[in-house]
């Protein structure tokens, strides 16, 4: 389509249609005009603007009723013209403005005329375009006191449309138009900003409408949920733009006290308001009510965009009018505080930014009034908190606590204003304590026990697992909520308090509560832990940086004092199980702890739990005590993180109690304590708990030794000592030397009551010694082995001789054999030749030297001295009346022997003294003890060798042989269940040990025969397989000691071969086992003989 650029051409085209329209006012003519307009260029149209508008306006102004469609098309046409041109004359603007407005009004009523929606829309859009087409300052002519009525009319018109129309489109356009009308348009077409005076004048003018606009908008906003978020968003925008403009602090500050003389007629002047302080206050009050409504409504609006817009509202109003809207600030801040953890991430983010922005500008901190408002809010929230916590559901609690957190964040360091008021602090702390009340009805926690030896080393040797304080391993159950998020929120609240608050004050207060009653103790400890974490800035998201935080030195001081409280006698040693461990000290301890129990009972009665009415209060209080300890342990881990490497100094008091708990019988406690140790390792840069213990053994030793001196308190000391030994190396020995002496001293004094626990300590000690000083053992064994090997080779040699006898050239060998025999006989008789002596001479000096050294008592290594001292006690305790003790003693004894093995001069006298009680254990004691004692005997045989030979043969062998013989028929007959009996185990152990024992003790002919006799029966196929195997092993050993005899014994039983004498002059060989049919022994004998030959 051609475009007519020059006004002349355009005029040529437009003139006919305009004339036509002027003459006959029909929709068709308007449309014709409009279609022509399309082909006219903008600049041409600008020149012809008034000319084109004339017929249209004329049509509108023609008196008499007009068809709506006509009006609508006229308005649309005007809108089109205005959209491409601009108005440069004030009159035109004003006239058009009023003409458009009039389209929707019935001349005789205030109500808008009942016209079609299309028309309304067209008019609103027309107005919108009109406002935008005003050129430069022209627009301001609309905002003169004299035009006030017009303006008022338009505004109320638009508000009515926005409020009462059904169509969403009309509503939104009306609101948009209103926004433009109030000169708050946010589009880019308004290049010129108003200067200050103009702004003020405009403000003065619009102030008249403020009540109307704000109430109407509030009605719109808080109207139907279903009207959609778009309208709410637009309405909110208009609201805050308007209020923010009229109530802007900046403007109000410049308002003179006295009203200016009105330059307009009286009637209009009456409409004008003067924004003096009084007006501001009144308006502020009224607006506060409206804002409260809006905030309440929109902050829970389901659509996130609405909530987002609300944040904009808050931001705008708080930035511009926090003085004039003082009363609303509380509500406005509440929005931010509440939305800061909104479920929509965008809202959350925006809210956070706004808050950060405020914080950065230090708006809250530096404004006393705001602080007051916030603290007031916080106070009322704290007051309501206990009630809300018990009445709301989890979601409600969550949002309430979010609010609390938000206030704290916003107040920042100013939170101290609140905390310094006793009433406030009390409210807050009571609320927190109440919410954090734990549910202590779970019986399982009390019942779960830790069994077996300490798993500390393996459970936490790797530090790869995250530190405890990050992933709380054990979930806590609370009385008043179940949602884990709430707990996390509460933690964050406490941390925030610790971060900003006066730490001394808070810690003092909560420590007081901690000590005040058992009911508060757990919660107070939890809060204290988090306060410290917060103060150290662990995982705290902050809005304000604060410089009033506690210094490292102060923090250390505070932590030290809390730690002292935690590990004090009355708070650390609580009753957690009703297992009487059977010793008197424990009982007396129980007695002293009765108070704790009774107060625990008190708790349970105070807060009766419907579900646990049948639970015994004791269980309740024990559960509570367990949690108490766990929380305190967690606290210690938390403190370690707070102080970092500095915590190392506190280890001298903290490590021992933690280790004590790591060895606790209650599963939960020991788990948490282990976790605490991992925490400490992380914080103090130790590689593993083992490393931690190893590096701090001196502190532990100190505590242990002091505790051993005060026997009544030390029921846990043995556990710690044990753990320490398991996790340390030989470097520990000089430190613990005196402690071991202390243990022995205590053992001497209290062997009735405490023998069990001390013996386990001694066992650990000696096991550690055996582990730390193995080299001596190796030497000796190596030597022994060499020696045995030589001997064995000798026997082997003679055995091969014996075997070769039948097949190879006999004469020389027989000769050699006889010569050897004679010489040996000579040696045995003492006729030793010089030549023989010379060979052995190099040996004596060596042995002499060896002999000299051990004679000097002082030069005994520490470990030897300890082992000797311990063995001394074992000798006494071997005949203890308690079986368990005897068993433990036997274990310890065995270890003593192992440690002492390289010091024969010490070992043998001790063995001599231990022999008699040991024989008693072996011969007439419980089978369990016999079993254990036999193990000891094997070890003894291993280490002492021939020193024991005679004793063994005299005291033990006969009885062993007898018992083996009597037991054999029983086992031969027994069924499969027999292998689970103690008797079987005993038989097995004896048979398994006997062989090597014989070898080590180097038993001679007759005794070997006894052993062989006793074991022969077990070669029977009737015996259980395991016993047969064990019996074969005995014979295998016997073969090594004396192959010939063994060969003979076996052949006596069953002989597979016939031996032809090589020469007829020799007697034929006759063995009783020859030519026997297959018997129950045959298989085993054949196996053994094959072994012997092969």
């Amino acid at each position, binding site marked *: 389509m051609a475009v007519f650029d020059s006004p002349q051409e355009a005029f040529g085209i437009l003139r006919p249609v305009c004339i036509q329209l002027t003459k006959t006012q029909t929709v068709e003519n308007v449309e014709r005009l409009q279609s022509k307009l399309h082909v006219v260029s903008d600049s041409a149209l600008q020149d012809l603007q008034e000319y084109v508008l004339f017929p249209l306006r004329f049509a509108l102004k023609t008196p008499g009723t007009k068809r709506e469609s006509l009006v609508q098309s006229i308005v649309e046409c005007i809108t089109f013209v205005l959209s491409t041109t601009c108005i440069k004359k004030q009159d035109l603007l004003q006239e058009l403005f009023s003409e458009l407005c009039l389209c929707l009004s019935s001349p005789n009523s205030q109500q808008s005329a009942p016209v079609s929606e299309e028309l309304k829309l067209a008019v609103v859009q027309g107005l919108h375009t009109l406002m935008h087409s005003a050129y430069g300052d022209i627009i301001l002519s609309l905002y003169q006191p004299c035009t006030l009525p017009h303006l008022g009319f338009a505004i109320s018109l638009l508000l009515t449309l926005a409020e009462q129309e059904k169509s969403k489109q009309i509503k939104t356009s009306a609101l948009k138009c209103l926004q433009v009308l109030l000169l708050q348009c946010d589009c880019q077409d308004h290049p010129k900003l108003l200067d200050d005076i103009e702004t003020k004048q405009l403000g003065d003018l619009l102030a008249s409408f403020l009540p109307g606009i704000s109430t109407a908008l509030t009605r719109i906003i808080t109207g139907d949920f279903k009207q959609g978020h778009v309208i709410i968003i637009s309405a909110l925008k208009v609201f805050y733009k308007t209020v923010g403009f009229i109530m802007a602090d900046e403007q109000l500050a410049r308002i003179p006290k006295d009203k200016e003389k009105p330059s307009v007629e009286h009637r209009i002047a009456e409409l004008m308001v003067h924004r003096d302080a009084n007006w501001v206050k009144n308006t502020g009050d009224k607006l506060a009510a409206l804002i409260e409504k809006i905030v309440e409504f929109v902050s829970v609006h389901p659509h996130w965009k609405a909530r987002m817009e609300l944040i904009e509202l808050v931001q705008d109003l708080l930035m511009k009018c926090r003085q004039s809207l003082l009363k609303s600030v509380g509500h406005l801040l509440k929005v931010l505080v509440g939305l800061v953890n909104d479920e929509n991430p965008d809202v959350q983010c925006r809210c956070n930014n706004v808050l950060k922005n405020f914080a950065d500008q230090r708006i809250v901190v530096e404004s006393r009034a705001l602080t007051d408002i916030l603290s007031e809010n916080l106070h009322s929230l704290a007051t309501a908190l206990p009630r809300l916590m018990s009445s709301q559901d989890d979601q409600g609690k969550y949002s309430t606590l979010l609010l609390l957190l938000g206030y704290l964040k916003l107040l920042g360091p100013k939170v101290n204003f609140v905390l310094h008021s006793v009433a406030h602090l009390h409210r807050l702390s009571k609320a927190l304590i109440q919410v954090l009340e734990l549910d202590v009805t779970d019986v399982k926690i009390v019942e779960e026990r830790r069994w077996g030896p300490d798993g500390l080393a393996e459970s936490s040797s790797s530090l790869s697992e995250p530190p405890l304080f990050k992933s709380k391993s054990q979930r806590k159950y609370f009385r008043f909520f179940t949602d884990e998020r709430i707990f996390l929120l509460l933690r964050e609240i406490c941390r925030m308090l610790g971060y900003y608050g006066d730490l001394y004050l808070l810690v003092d207060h909560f420590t007081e509560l901690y000590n005040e009653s058992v009911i508060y103790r757990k919660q107070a400890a939890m809060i204290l832990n988090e306060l410290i974490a917060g103060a150290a800035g662990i995982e705290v998201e902050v809005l304000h940086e604060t410089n009033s935080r506690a210094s490292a030195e102060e923090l250390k001081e505070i932590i030290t004092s809390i730690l002292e409280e935690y590990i004090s006698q009355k708070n650390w040693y609580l009753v957690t199980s009703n297992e009487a461990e059977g010793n008197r000290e424990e009982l007396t301890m129980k007695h002293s702890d009765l108070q704790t129990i009774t107060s625990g009972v008190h708790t349970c009665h105070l807060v009766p739990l419907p579900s646990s009415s049948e639970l015994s209060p004791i269980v309740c209080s024990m559960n509570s005590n367990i949690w108490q300890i766990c929380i305190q342990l967690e606290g210690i881990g938390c403190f370690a993180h707070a102080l970092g490497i500095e915590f190392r*100094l506190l280890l001298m008091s903290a490590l021992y109690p933690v280790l004590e708990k790591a060895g606790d019988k209650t599963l939960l406690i020991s788990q948490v304590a282990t976790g605490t140790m991992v925490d400490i390792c992380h914080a103090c840069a130790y590689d593993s708990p083992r490393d931690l213990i190893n590096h701090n053994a*001196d502190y532990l030793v100190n505590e242990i030794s*002091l505790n051993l001196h005060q026997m009544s308190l030390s029921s846990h000391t043995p556990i710690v000592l044990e753990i320490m030994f398991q996790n340390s190396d030989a470097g520990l020995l000089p430190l613990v030397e005196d402690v071991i002496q202390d243990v022995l001293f205590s053992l001497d004094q209290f062997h009735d009551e405490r023998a069990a626990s001390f013996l386990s300590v001694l066992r650990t000690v000696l096991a550690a010694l055996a582990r730390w000083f193995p080299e001596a053992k190796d030497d000796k064994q190596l030597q022994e082995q060499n020696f045995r090997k030589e001997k064995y080779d000798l026997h082997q040699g003679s055995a091969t001789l014996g075997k070769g006898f039948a097949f190879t050239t006999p004469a020389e060998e027989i000769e050699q054999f006889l010569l050897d025999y004679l010489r040996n006989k000579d040696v045995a008789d003492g006729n030793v030749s010089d030549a023989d002596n010379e060979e052995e001479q190099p040996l004596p000096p060596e042995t002499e030297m060896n002999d000299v050294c051990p004679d000097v008592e002082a030069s005994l290594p520490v470990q030897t001295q300890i082992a000797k001292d311990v063995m001394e006690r074992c000798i006494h305790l071997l005949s203890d009346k308690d079986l368990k003790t005897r068993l433990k003693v036997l274990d310890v004894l065995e270890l003593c022997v192992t440690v002492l093995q390289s010091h024969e001069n010490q070992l043998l006298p001790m063995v001599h003294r231990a022999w008699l009680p040991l024989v008693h254990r072996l011969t007439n004691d419980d089978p369990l003890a016999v079993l254990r004692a036999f193990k000891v005997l094997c070890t003894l045989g291993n280490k002492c060798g021939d020193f024991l030979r005679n004793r063994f043969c005299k005291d033990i062998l006969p009885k062993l042989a007898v018992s083996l013989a009597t037991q054999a028929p029983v086992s031969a007959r027994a069924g499969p269940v027999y292998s689970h009996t103690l008797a079987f185990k005993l038989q097995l152990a004896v048979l398994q040990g006997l062989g090597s024992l014989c070898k080590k003790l180097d038993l001679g002919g007759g005794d070997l025969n006894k052993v062989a006799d006793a074991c022969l029966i077990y070669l029977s196929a009737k015996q259980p397989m395991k016993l047969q195997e064990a019996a074969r092993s005995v014979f295998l050993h016997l073969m090594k000691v004396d192959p010939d005899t063994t060969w003979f014994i076996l052949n006596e039983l069953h002989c597979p071969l016939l031996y032809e004498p090589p020469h007829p002059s020799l007697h034929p060989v006759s063995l009783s086992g020859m030519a026997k049919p297959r018997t129950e022994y045959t298989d085993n004998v054949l196996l053994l003989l094959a072994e012997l030959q092969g």
Partner: protein
Amino acid sequence: MCRRLSLDVEKFQECTRLAVCQSLLFLPGRCSWISLPVMALAPPSPQFVLRGSQSAVNTLHFSCRSKAHSPPLLFSGSLGGLIHVWNLETRRVDTTLDGHAGQSVYWVKTLEGQHLLLSQGRDLKLCLWDLAEGRNAPVDSLSLDSVGFCKGSVLTEGTQGCWLLAVPGKDMDEVQVLDMPSKTSVCTLKPEAGAKVGMPMCLELWKPASSSGPLLLAGYEDGSVILWDVSERSVLSRLACHEEPVMSLDFDSGRARGVSGSSEKVLCVWSLDEQQNLKVCRTQELTNPGIADVAIRPDGKILATAGWDHRIRLFGWKQLKPLAVLDYHSAAVHCVAFSDPGRPGEQLLAGGSKDQRISVWSVYNQT
């Protein structure tokens, strides 16, 4: 007696200790011998114990009063010839000083804060250490002529860096006073020929506020205490207060009263009047004989004794009222020391024993 002592006092102590142990058997158990006014509930236990000296502890010296940021220290000299510097904050050895060739160290003392350290050992040497900036080698040493066990004594003069040192001299009954660090002999104090006091056993140099010259209190082998005027080189007073050698003495110049302990059962308190005369004002009988060391707390309230009977005893210094028996060690206690007065409530007492442990106590701090 003189011969035996000068031969080997350690052996002698050992003998006496055996006697003590026998006398222990007649005691009614290991309980305290007086009712304890403060700690009647439980026997007091040490605040902590320092382990790791690896041989008997002969002497202790606190050094807590120093510039900020340096931790309180405790110096200990051991039979094995090592000096351990214990950090009382970490309760661990900071440094180990080895300068006496493995010979027993029986006196350590700091000068001018924590940095200069004097140590006296059985290798007949007195070493001066400079410990600043972590150094650990002796900077100077002085050969001694006496083989006895007499600890030296130091008096810091007004002028910077100058101090008097009293040590046993070349002759058996002689005390030598030196000006340090120049090592020039000021005088030699030798009793009259007929006095027969034996070897000096313990020395205490001090300077009374009134008098001009420094005075020296010396305990002798015959059980007497002599007050010397160092500048006049004359005996001002002699007091025979013990039957046995004086093992240790301490003097409270504020009250002009001193206390001495010997190998017998008696603790003797004597005072010094205006005429510079020593006279006995009180004696205190103990359960077991043998006092290795005595120390008066710097605030003049408490007296502590180190007993061969393994115990440390505490007395009120004013009335000599028995306060407590600290029963921790398992062998003779060789030395006791009080910390310099720091903040109230933080005055420590340390006892070093033959059992190689050092016990540190915080007692009677409330007063």
